[in-house]
């Protein structure tokens, strides 16, 4: 192969794009079993795989502070085995077919899933049912897992990033809102949890009513349906849906919290407030607003704090919508000596964007970016199953992801600006800094943002 037939190349400007190929979210076949379990099947034949996910209305948000961490512990305790299979035998059987149980517990749901080669689906489904429907929650396994959870809490407290996330949640939300605490609970709450609590939680919350069973992969729909009916059709139980969450802030106005970690070479910074619930009508305009602010590499925050100032390896902003209003926040890790300057710069970017709004060009780029990367995150059975699970958890229309890109493309510059202004109140921001108090408190006070409270780290 030589370059002799190659014509001279004009490199001065980017090449024209080719013709666009359409992308469709795989169609979701939806039907409900008699016990209320909502079956959602999407066929994907790119790889000989199948992902099965049971999506249950069993999140942490329904729990009071004193039993915080119970949903997480109960989910993990599924690996403890059943009457028929010990925990070890269950692990052996799952890994023997090249799979493993994945349990993800969030504020709003518990999702128990596994992925295996498609020709091992029946065995996988049977093991999933064994683990979830006939779990025996052995005392000694609960004891072990509780001890592991407590060790994880300790690890979070020593990790500056996790510590800052947890401190920020507690500083933003009032104590009456479950979101003020760490998702996995506190040392105090987890120490109080045991086998009886886990069993009771599973009985009340791991039920088919309000739950979904998601199957994505290289399977025949009729076969998938009949397997789910065989293994999960007899699943009984009816839980009461948890109540709605009202989110109130811890304080009015701007406040600064410094959590002292003496000798830190960097500060972990969080700037945030209460944001949006998943049901917000501003979902799409806020996606665009956030992409311009700090949700992409070429966002205003990145271009200023990383590419202009070199203050940080990375800075981002995000909304974390939940059933109730989840947090909005900017996060970054910056050197101790520039902490206050970086906070000032981040606030200037946020205030500037709220004040003058994004430019037409920025909004166009953000639309193209978000609409363009959408199919990039739908290559695997697990990714598609996660999107369908989201539909289930938040009661979104079945075609939510089929129309997603059209919705994104429909966001105007003014609607993105208005959505940002309607959601973020710059006069009500909390600033949380986990770092060396001696090095950061003075300069933060000089910024005059509001009262600066200093507490010791754990």
């Amino acid at each position: 192969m030589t370059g002799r037939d190659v014509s001279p190349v004009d490199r001065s400007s980017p090449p024209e794009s080719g013709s666009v190929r359409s992308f469709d979210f795989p169609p979701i076949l939806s039907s409900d079993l008699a016990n209320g379990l909502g079956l959602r099947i999407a066929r994907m034949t790119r790889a000989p795989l199948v992902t099965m996910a049971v999506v249950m209305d069993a999140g942490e948000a329904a729990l009071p502070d004193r039993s915080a961490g119970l949903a997480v512990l109960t989910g993990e305790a599924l690996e403890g085995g059943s009457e028929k299979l010990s925990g070890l035998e269950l692990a052996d059987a799952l890994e023997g077919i090249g799979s493993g149980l994945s349990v993800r517990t969030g504020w709003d749901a518990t999702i128990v899933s596994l992925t295996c080669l498609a020709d091992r689906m029946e065995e996988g489904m049977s093991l999933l049912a064994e683990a979830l429907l006939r779990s025996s929650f052995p005392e000694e396994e609960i004891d072990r897992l509780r001890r592991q959870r407590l060790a994880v809490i300790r690890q979070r407290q020593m990790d500056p990033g996790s510590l800052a996330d947890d401190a920020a949640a507690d500083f933003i939300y009032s104590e009456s809102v479950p979101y003020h605490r760490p998702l996995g609970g506190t040392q105090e709450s987890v120490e109080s949890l045991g086998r009886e609590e886990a069993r009771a939680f599973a009985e009340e919350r791991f039920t088919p009513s309000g739950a979904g069973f998601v199957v994505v992969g290289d399977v025949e729909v009729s076969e998938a349906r009949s397997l789910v009916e065989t293994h999960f059709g007899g699943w009984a139980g009816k839980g009461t849906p948890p109540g709605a969450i009202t989110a109130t802030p811890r304080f009015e106005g701007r406040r600064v919290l410094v959590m002292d970690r003496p000798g830190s070479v960097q500060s972990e910074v969080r700037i945030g407030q209460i944001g949006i619930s998943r049901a917000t009508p501003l979902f799409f305009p806020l996606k665009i607003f956030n992409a311009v602010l700090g949700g992409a590499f070429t966002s205003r925050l990145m271009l200023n704090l990383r590419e202009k100032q070199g203050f940080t390896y990375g800075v981002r902003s995000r909304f974390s919508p939940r059933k109730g209003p989840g947090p909005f926040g900017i996060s970054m890790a910056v050197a101790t000596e520039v902490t206050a300057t970086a906070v000032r710069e981040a606030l200037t970017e946020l205030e500037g964007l709220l004040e003058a709004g994004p430019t037409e060009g920025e909004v166009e780029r953000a639309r193209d970016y978000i609409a363009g990367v959408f199919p990039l995150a739908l290559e695997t059975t697990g990714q598609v199953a996660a999107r369908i699970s989201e539909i289930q958890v938040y009661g979104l229309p079945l075609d939510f992801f089929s129309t997603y890109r059209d919705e994104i493309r429909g966001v105007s510059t003014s609607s993105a600006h208005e959505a940002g202004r309607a959601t973020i109140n710059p006069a009500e921001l909390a600033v949380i800094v986990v770092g060396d108090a001696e090095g950061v408190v003075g300069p933060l006070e000089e910024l005059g943002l509001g009262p600066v409270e200093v507490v010791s780290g754990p």
Partner: protein
Amino acid sequence: MNREEEGTLLNVPVERHRLSNGLRITLSMDRSVPIVAVNLWYGVGSRNERPGRTGFAHLFEHMMFQGSANVPKNRHFELVEQAGGTLNASTWFDRTNYYETLPSHHLELALWLESDRMGWMLPAMTQEKLENQQGVVKNERKERYDNQPYGDWDERMQALVFPSDHPYHHSVIGSMEDIGAATLEDVAEFFQTFYVPNNAVLTLAGDFDPGHALRSIERYFSEIPQGAPIPPLPGNQQISSVIGGVVEEEVVGNVPLPRVYLGLRVPRLVAEGFHTADVAATVLGGGKASRLHRSLVREKRVAKDVLAYLFPLQTSASLLLFWVTGYPDSDPDTLRAALLEELDGLESVTDEELDRAVALTETHLVRSIQQVGTRADLLSMFDQSFDDPGRLNGEVERVRAVTLGQVREFGERFLGPDNRAFLTYLPGEVQEPGEDQ
């Protein structure tokens, strides 16, 4: 499942080409989704760094995003994001990779961007950009190494496992001092030496027409001149296949839980025996039915978590790593003893355990290659390391071919007391630099 059955699980198509300037090309078409991955591996990594310039390969990777002759600063990111693509790069011991995944109608954009910086990066370099990225990388080091519990384990472990004159002795991130010492002359020299088409492999995976894609690659890359042969690695690569004893380091500091790391030399990626090491690692520490998880976490309950990971490396040896995280009051001697008991017991490995390793490998590989980005990266890896991207398709068979006898022999040769580097972290007051322990 039957370990003897013939596998046809991996059927990734591979079409190879080579430009006259030495650039190796792999095309792997899959039109099932309208996206394409463009992936470039340069055969340069931290192993190529000279003394006083540790971390330079990685700093240079950052500079590759600072523009080129026809691409102003920030424009690279803007163009790819606006096209609806994602992009990144990473630096490792043996290589530096650059990659984009985009909607397939923007393939040409990625080729234009990659070729512009492969051919014409230097005209865009300035002192200001270098200083900006030195700041970014110093913050990256602080965030990921210095302000993170156990963050510097790899730096310490590499120094224990590889002698001081070996190219793997120092970390990829490098020292603060060396990051700060880099000059524009270093950038130019490194670029001219290593960022040449004869030191690169380019892989496309996903939705494209192979004929059209090849013509585009030729158009953008063929006028980039071939470089000189790549200079030999600095330092001494002639080391023993094992460490030669037990080396130990203890770090008291800002960590939540005691943790013992054990590192050892095992066959390098391209050597006979690499897959045996891979299977042994899975038997010992892959998954919750593995020996270490079963014994240390579930039965003895001395550990909160365990991990076994095989770093596939090209020079002299690969690094097999174990870690055992204890509970707050764990005695590190207990953790070490429990770990060694399992390593010593590998001779009792069973057929069922090999079956499990094969099954886990199968699912892992099939899951990984669902994403065109991962698929392209694996093909580049096999191209750069073996001059054979299609080797990917035989990976399950290579794992399946590993025998009980080989695993036992591996245990005897590599898991003994002549091949152990222990690094132990204990919670406690941080030791000031210069203070005796």
